[in-house]
């Protein structure tokens, strides 16, 4: 998805994990992926540079959908979609 398309998304939940260190942001995302119903868009805000690379890798591994990332000033907005139960 393009940045413009990502900005139009209405996430079911936004997790602000700024202030936690690797693998904190990923773990916060996972909690939400578990809890939200299938079809939900989840936004993760991370201040950890690794997350922008780590999260897509994890989503791919567990077969959930990575929608994209918007880089901010010292943080990253990462969008994921829950496509199956886990």
């Amino acid at each position, binding site marked *: 998805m393009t940045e413009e398309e990502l900005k139009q998304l209405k996430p079911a939940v936004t997790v602000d994990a700024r202030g936690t*260190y690797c693998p904190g942001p*990923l773990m916060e995302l*996972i*909690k939400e992926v578990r809890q939200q119903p299938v079809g939900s868009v989840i936004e993760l805000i991370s201040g950890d540079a690794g997350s922008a690379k780590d999260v897509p890798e994890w989503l791919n*591994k567990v077969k959930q959908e990575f929608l994209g990332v918007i880089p901010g000033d010292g943080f990253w907005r990462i969008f994921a979609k829950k496509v199956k139960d886990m």
Partner: protein
Amino acid sequence: MSEKLAIIIASEEYEKSHVASMIASVAAVSGVDVSIFVTMNAVYNFLKENVEKKNFTGGKLYEQIKEKKAAMFYELFDSAKMLGGLKIYVCSMVMDILKIEKDDLIDIVDDHLGLAAFLGIMEGAETITF
């Protein structure tokens, strides 16, 4: 990567327990079956007494982890246990030598095991040692 991961922590160095907990957490939430074997001096890091007092042997990064108030290794293990398949075993021999009971160990420890049992767990698993 194999779907089974075994991690042996033998050193008391704080950073080693920390990196073990990071790898274990991400693996556990990625569907990997993770088993941790805590042995030798690493057992001191899993004693309630030392965890309560944050009495750990660490280097420069440990000082930074404390200063930045990053999650400690036992907190990472704890959240991994809630979200994925992770078991923590402490070496029976060390418990014998130090005369410690399961109650002396922090609650995230599942059980104590001998080497034959842990070798059984390691069979077919990717193994990392710290």
